[in-house]
């Protein structure tokens, strides 16, 4: 972090602001204590006893993703690239979320697996399971560390708290409520966090629009700025992808970001899928990602637009965009700078609370998915089998503590990286892109063999790493996000090719073991959800809700394209 920017970024937080922040922390910890009462088994602790209503899991589903990287990174992309950033939402999330709900959830929820790696174990056996469980657990702890570090450096810049102190305080709060109340506490807090984040960003957006002279004022200022009118339309986003050719750029977005990266992330990332697995019925599980998709489609309005406005009203960001980086400000500071310039004491406290809430949402999601995979997929499967359930509940609690401690150390390791967004994207493309290929083949192609499961994953991951190395060393010249889109695409194709090739020369998995896991071997009634009781009503139909959000997204794409 640049030392120069320190004094400039300091927020003028008063006692009132700290009081509002303190109220929030009291409520967060209170939820942890209250949720503790409902924890008596390991399934209660690690999967909320599969009892939550769909609106809760749905909001938690997107809140778990609304962490540090998301908020600051997307506002930064908005300031730097403008409107094309919406692709991360409309192309890069909505279709995959609907697909997860309608197509994949019947197998995840229907097979009663407790985690995404467990699905792989039952479908492909030990090889693929170990590859996925270990890489997922490692990635979650790593990302939790990145989130913690981002939180701490923000607290340091804004409020002047020392970085080590902020890391430990934030980790202690997340640890307190996740160890007490397990996934329920994490999920309830994620829902609360969602509303606090909106309560922080919506007034900020309105104040910023007021300041810039309404929508027309924004259009005029951006058109006159260094980015030009190109930054006001989502396509073809050549600046964002780094592909000069507009056709290639759109292909890169639709295939790389929209198909491979986003489907890999949303449909196989257990930190997300876990929220749906904790729903109380098949119908609620299917609706979880789809209910989350509605706010996901609309939330760019209060993340990206403030970023765009920051680039025309905040002097330091204006200067940075014109090519003058002497103030030491980076694009990731766009959102905090706008908060500094626009919000009076009072709302300032809510905004700080919202930022902190978002960081903790990210860390809690990482930690609460890590402990489940560690307990069920690593400890129970490979280290200590067949113990009584209390034993695994205790392991779950200890894994939460251990994971958080490792994350604190990773936070200090992460300090070396400047652009958090690129770093995380690279990680995602290593682990997630080949996963989707393996899942989709495994769910719909019963012939696919166990060896193909792990071979495809390993080959795909190596493919992504290769592209990353080529791009880092300058062999491939792709500025912007183009390299991670390409890496994800390569991982996907390599995974498919290797999986098919290996399947041809190895034995298939016996069919009787694949019931409930593969489309053609699962009876239709096992894939259907009930439509009675609390799942009744046309407005609770997953297909209808999913169609609705796709239409909404298409309309948004046309308006802002």
């Amino acid at each position, binding site marked *: 972090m640049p030392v120069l920017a320190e004094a400039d970024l300091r927020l003028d937080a008063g006692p*009132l602001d700290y009081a*509002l922040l303190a*109220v*929030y922390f009291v*409520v967060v910890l*209170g*939820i942890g204590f*209250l*949720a503790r*009462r409902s924890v008596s*088994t390991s*399934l*209660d602790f690690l999967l909320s*006893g*599969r*009892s939550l209503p769909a609106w*809760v899991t749905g909001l938690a589903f997107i809140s778990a993703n609304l962490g540090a990287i998301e908020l600051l990174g997307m506002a930064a992309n908005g300031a730097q690239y403008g409107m094309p950033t919406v692709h991360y939402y409309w192309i890069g999330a909505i279709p995959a979320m609907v697909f997860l709900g309608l197509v994949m959830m019947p197998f995840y929820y229907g097979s*009663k697996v407790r985690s995404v790696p467990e699905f792989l174990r039952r479908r492909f056996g030990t090889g693929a399971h170990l590859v996925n469980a270990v890489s997922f657990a490692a990635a979650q702890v790593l990302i939790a560390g990145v989130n913690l570090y981002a939180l701490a450096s923000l607290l340091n810049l804004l409020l002047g708290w020392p970085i080590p102190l902020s890391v430990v305080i934030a980790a202690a709060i997340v640890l307190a409520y996740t160890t007490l109340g397990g996934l329920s506490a994490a999920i*309830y807090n994620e*829902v*609360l966090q969602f*509303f*606090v984040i909106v*309560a922080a960003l*919506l*007034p900020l957006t*309105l*104040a*910023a629009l*007021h*300041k810039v002279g309404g929508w027309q004022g924004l259009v005029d200022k951006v058109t006159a700025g260094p980015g030009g009118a190109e930054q006001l339309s989502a396509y073809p986003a050549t600046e964002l992808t780094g592909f000069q050719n507009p056709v290639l750029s759109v292909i890169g977005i639709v295939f790389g970001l929209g198909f491979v990266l986003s489907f890999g992330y949303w449909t196989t990332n257990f930190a997300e899928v876990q929220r749906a697995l904790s729903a109380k019925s098949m119908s609620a599980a299917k609706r979880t990602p789809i209910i989350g998709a509605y706010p996901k489609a609309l939330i760019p309005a209060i993340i990206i637009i403030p970023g765009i406005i920051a680039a025309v009203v905040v002097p330091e960001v204006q200067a940075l965009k014109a090519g003058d980086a002497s103030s030491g400000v980076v694009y990731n500071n766009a959102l905090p700078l706008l908060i500094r*310039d*626009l*919000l*009076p*004491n*009072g*709302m300032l406290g*809510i905004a700080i609370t919202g930022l902190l809430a978002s960081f903790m949402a990210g860390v809690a999601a990482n930690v609460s998915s890590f402990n489940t995979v560690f307990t069920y997929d690593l400890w129970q499967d490979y280290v200590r089998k067949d113990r009584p*359930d209390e034993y695994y509940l205790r392991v779950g609690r200890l894994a939460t503590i251990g994971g958080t401690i490792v994350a604190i150390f990773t936070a200090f390791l992460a300090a070396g990286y400047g652009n958090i967004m690129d770093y995380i994207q690279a990680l995602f493309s290593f682990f997630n892109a080949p996963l989707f290929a393996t899942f989709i083949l495994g769910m719909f192609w019963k012939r696919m063999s166990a060896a193909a499961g792990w071979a495809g994953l390993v080959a795909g991951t190596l493919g992504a790493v290769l592209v990353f190395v080529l791009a880092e060393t300058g062999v491939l010249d792709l500025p912007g996000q183009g390299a991670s889109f390409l890496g994800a695409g390569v991982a996907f194709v390599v995974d498919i090719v290797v999986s098919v090739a290996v399947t041809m020369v190895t034995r298939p998995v016996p069919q009787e073991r694949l019931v409930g896991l593969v489309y053609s071997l699962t009876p239709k009634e096992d894939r259907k959800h009930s439509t009675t009781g609390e799942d009744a009503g046309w407005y609770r139909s997953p297909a209808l809700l999913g169609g609705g959000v796709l239409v909404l997204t298409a309309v948004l794409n046309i308006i802002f394209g």
Partner: protein
Amino acid sequence: MARKAGLFDLRLVIAMLFAVYGVVLVVVGLGFTDEADLAKADGWNVNLWSGVGMLALAAVFAAWTALRPIVVPDDAEAESRRTS
């Protein structure tokens, strides 16, 4: 017999948090806002209107909680045992 869930309804927690935030912001917006604060957003009273919005959100959640209380079915415990 079905019973209502006790104090811990998430909707009520959300309503209470935003009621507190809303009241504080409205009071600050009405009584403790000077020209310098207003000038930050070119004359728009951010605190007042954000506070009003949060009170509205709190009211919606309070009303939802009151109109559709959580009902815990009798067999809830048996059910959770079955799925685990």
